[in-house]
């Protein structure tokens, strides 16, 4: 039913990675370097959404829950408990994975729009909870938590924007490789079947609840990894890391890039994030533009830009001159 998805893309990817590798040498200033660094992490986050939302077809509208769990864990463990960063990062990964297992378990019996509702409600609850929390403040110096955020103590004196850039780029390449491996594995194939039709997946003997849970766990682990990277680069965890806008952003990148293609959402994030962040549009205007792009994409390219164009081309080929894509 679906064409081989990853045909020519890896070659293009390698070329793109080469350009990104050389970009800082072309005299990029620190601000753009920072924007691109966060862009790489956002791309991993967008790809992680695609694992559960695209590949497995479970519409998650609370993906920021996993991201925020990781950043908050990093911040609280390093600043409040004084753990070294690597240890805190490991714990943060475990916690966000556990959050994924919990959300996956709760949403496994549900279908379509109701998965979206449940994840939306869980994400909003976490956001609302952490927005009001200032009781993490140590010895009343100033209030921590909420929108002001909690500092993340990295404890690496030689950390610089350059190192962050290359570390994030390497992280992006590694995660892209991992996600593509997942997508091409037998489990990935089962998830694709699941997103096509749960009924026929079950008829062919798939334990659909287990696989839905598994998809959430994998996606949460990857989103958590992106969150750890974000905490390290930004040095602060705020309640915004749990916000509905962030969850929505992931779904937007996936819808624009093409759901279930892994590479599509990553490329969409790489393209849009620096474009909107690097030009001085105010935050409200940014989110507004995301929403507009999303609505247009969903309306005119229901299978994502790449996917719909490919479908139309195929329909035209098959129907000769008669097919007009409808």
């Amino acid at each position, binding site marked *: 039913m679906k064409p081989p998805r990853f045909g020519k893309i890896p070659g293009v990817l390698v070329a793109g990675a080469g350009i990104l590798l050389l970009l800082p040498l072309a005299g990029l200033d620190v601000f753009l370097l920072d924007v691109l660094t966060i862009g790489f992490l956002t791309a991993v986050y967008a790809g992680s959404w695609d694992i559960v939302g695209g590949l497995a077809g479970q519409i998650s509208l609370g993906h920021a829950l996993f991201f925020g769990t990781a950043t908050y864990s990093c911040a609280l463990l390093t600043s409040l408990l004084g753990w070294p960063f690597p240890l805190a990062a490991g714990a943060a990964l475990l916690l966000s994975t556990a959050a994924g297992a919990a959300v996956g378990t709760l949403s496994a019996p549900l279908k379509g729009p109701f998965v979206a509702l449940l994840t939306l409600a869980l994400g909003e609850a976490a956001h609302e909870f952490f927005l009001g929390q200032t009781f993490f403040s140590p010895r009343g110096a100033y209030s921590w938590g909420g929108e002001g955020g909690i500092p993340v103590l990295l404890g690496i004196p030689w950390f610089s924007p350059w190192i962050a850039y290359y570390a994030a780029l390497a992280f992006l390449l590694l995660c892209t490789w991992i996600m593509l491996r997942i997508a091409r594995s037998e489990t990935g194939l089962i998830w694709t079947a699941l997103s096509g039709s749960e009924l026929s997946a079950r008829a062919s003997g798939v334990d659909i609840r287990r696989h839905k849970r598994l998809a959430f766990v994998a996606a949460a682990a990857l989103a958590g990894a992106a969150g750890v990277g974000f905490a390290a680069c930004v040095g602060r965890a705020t309640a915004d890391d749990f916000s509905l806008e962030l969850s929505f952003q992931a779904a937007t990148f996936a819808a624009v890039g093409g759901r279930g293609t892994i590479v599509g959402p990553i490329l969409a994030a790489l393209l849009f994030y620096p474009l909107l962040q690097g030009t001085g549009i105010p935050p409200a205007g940014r989110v507004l533009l995301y*929403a507009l792009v999303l609505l247009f994409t969903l309306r005119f390219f229901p299978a994502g830009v790449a996917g719909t164009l490919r479908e139309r081309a195929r329909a035209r080929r098959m129907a000769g001159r008669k097919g007009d894509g409808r």
Partner: protein
Amino acid sequence: MNPLAQVLVDGIFTGASYALMAAGLALILGVVKVVNLSHGAFFTLGAYVAYVLESRGLGNPLAAVLMAAVIAFAFGVFLCKSFINPVRSHPFSVAVGSLGFAILFEQAAQMLWGPHTLSIDLGAPVAVVDGVTLRRWGVISFLVSLGLLGGLSLLLSRPWGLPLKLIAEDEEIAGSVGMDVEKIRYLTFGAASSVAAIAGALLAPAATITPTMGRVPLILSLIVVIASGMEKVWNIFFLAVGLGLLSNVSAYLFAPHWSYVLLLAVICLLLVFRPKGLAAAGPARDY
């Protein structure tokens, strides 16, 4: 002076307006057959319309209601025609797109009126009974809600409302007996949106007006719709009043933002423990 009695009375007034909104959401789920996450945006729209009228010196609640209803109806029909109807069969597009529209509206409101909270003058109380104030907006919103819900209930029980019920039951049959299903869909979506805006305009004096104020009533309406259905209008009313009371009392006992967390917890529990009860209200097709 009994603060808890005051909270209860205000809770009933608020809940009645929420019932209006929930009834609109239920109609959309029943007739258009989508879970519309942009419903809260229309509530916010109504509140801002009331605010703008107030700040221009037109503090008449009924003017605000009328204006909000007209604007929201136009917006709703436009949204349904241009977006919801064409992507109706893709649950992903509906969920993410309607949420996207809500976020679009939130950000636009933030750019137009700023992120800070706004408020409207409460007006003089209608009466004070036993130390409990019956506020003017409260009485008006209660009466308007009751009237509109009564109208809806009447509509659904008369031959006039038959198209709505038939489309909710089976679209193909409705189409084959000559009903213009698409037109009824647009009108239903527009009417439901305008009802949400009416609720927003009525509640504006009681609430703090912010761009994201529509999220709480959206979650509340979703709970009501999941637990009830489209046709039993009075079930919707009592559920919404109950939830309005719950959220008001919890806001009074703890802090305002805890009432939202509580509602979110309720919807999570409902979804987790009654997934079968939803299937009846959800889209008929297995996607």
